[in-house]
């Protein structure tokens, strides 16, 4: 049930544990700063990312905007290294004993594009493919499992957000790894929504945003891909990550989405 005035809601109310992966820049940073304003007393924001410097800047922005005393914890992490998961997950979920939190929210935002220079038929090396899926798929599944284990029981309201992409459903040249990984994640979370009706599960397509990731995509060397994003830019469809983060937060706060749904910032699809 939403509370008035301060923008707090059942999702972001008091005593919310919130983890955002890939929080050192781009959309992750925007999400962290936006959510921080909405987290109530006794909440904790955990940010993971590869760059400590980036995480520290996000934390600085959070503390600048956030009027409440919010505990912010930074965890440097490389999601591609599965041997480091036990230590990483320990750090993320430390001090989350029973009764510590009423709400738990995890935003799976960290992602990589993979080698955009390779076409699908040029992916000869299974080790490179495996590394990609370890970073973008296995890590998300294993982290979700840990999240569910830590916050098991019906007294904690749990929300899982999968930051996805339009290419999860629309194939795009040079995006073989990225689109297949996102397609896999979308299906995984749809199954999760079926199995766990008490968990709010959302796959969110944030749209093309002015981030380092989009820069990489636009310089992949494929004219059709470049043309696509140039056309989007000329129509004013390249969003700021803040705008996209705001739309995502609105979806969470309104809390009307069907669990497991895949929703797009522009409403291009609702699957």
């Amino acid at each position: 049930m939403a509370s008035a005035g301060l923008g707090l809601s059942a999702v972001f109310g008091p005593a919310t544990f919130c983890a955002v992966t890939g929080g050192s820049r781009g959309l992750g940073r925007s999400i962290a700063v936006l959510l921080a304003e909405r987290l109530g007393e006794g909440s904790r924001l955990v940010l993971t990312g590869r760059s400590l410097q980036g995480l520290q800047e996000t934390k600085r922005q959070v503390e600048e905007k956030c009027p409440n005393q919010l505990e912010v914890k930074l965890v440097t992490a490389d999601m591609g290294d599965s041997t480091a998961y036990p230590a990483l997950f320990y750090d993320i979920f430390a001090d989350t004993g029973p009764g510590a939190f009423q709400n738990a929210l995890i935003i799976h935002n960290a992602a990589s594009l993979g080698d955009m220079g390779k076409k699908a038929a040029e992916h000869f090396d299974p080790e490179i493919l495996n590394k990609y899926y370890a970073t973008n798929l296995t890590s998300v599944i294993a982290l979700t499992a840990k999240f569910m284990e830590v916050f098991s029981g019906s007294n904690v309201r749990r929300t899982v957000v999968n930051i996805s992409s339009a290419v999860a459903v629309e194939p795009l040249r040079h995006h073989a790894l990225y689109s297949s990984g996102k397609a896999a994640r979308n299906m995984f979370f749809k199954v999760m929504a079926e199995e766990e009706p008490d968990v709010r599960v959302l796959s969110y397509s944030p749209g093309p945003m002015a981030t380092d990731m989009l820069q990489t995509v636009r310089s992949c060397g494929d004219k059709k891909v470049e043309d696509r994003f140039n056309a989007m830019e000329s129509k004013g469809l390249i969003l700021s990550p803040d705008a996209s983060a705001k739309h995502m937060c609105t979806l969470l706060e309104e809390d009307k989405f069907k669990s497991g749904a895949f929703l797009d910032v522009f409403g291009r699809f609702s699957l």
Partner: protein
Amino acid sequence: MDVPTLSAVKMAEGGEGWTHPFSKRKSLCVVTGGSRGFGRSVAVALAEEVARGSHIVVLGRNSESLRDTEKLSKAMSPHIQITTLFGDLSKCSVTGSIFACLRFQVDPTDYDHALLVNNAGSVGNVSRRTWEHGDPQELDSYFNLNVASAVSLTAKFLEFVRPGNLTCTIVNVTCDEAHRPMKCHSLYCAGKAAREMMFRVMAQEEPHLRILSYNPGPLETELKTTVMVEAADAEVREEIRRLRDDNQLIDPDVSARKLVLFSQKFL
């Protein structure tokens, strides 16, 4: 051009007088997961249709079962070559060694057409719910077998046959679960969704290739029996049981023949 996804239950048979293009062309075919089940049925169905002088390579994990696949295929046609290769696609080194081995036995310039059927796969541990998949090594191994190996094998296959300048058909064996979430099947759904998307991107990038995602329908194979017995969710077990009891599980041989029929419509 998007990749057609066909379902065995929707395909029509060719009409009277229709000839099988396969019978006119020497084909080099590779079928993975051919020790049993649908892969075996595909190998046998291909053996029935391909032209004299064709070569079918069957990859599998069980040597004894592979020999049975070989016998059944050879019984279809004495005029073709059957090669069986033992290999576990969940191990990274295997995709490379397959073609290293074939290089000594197969010259792609001897053939008119090349066909790869990416069938090998597993359903994953259906006794686990989504949130119980906490072992990263198990997850990595699953996606290696079910996604990475199919992609790298396809890349290596295309590279292998390139000197022959052959027409190439790539088949991705898929299923309903690539699009329909099913309890206890989180990894299977994820893996099949990843594969389908991977091949759809490939189809965009390689317009000269014929790429087909084929849904064989719910088959009467060990995979379904495993789910019927081991799935954590009673409704899932019951659904399979009902399909079996109502004779709605499809004979893999029938489905395999439809796949072969349709593959030829591309030619």
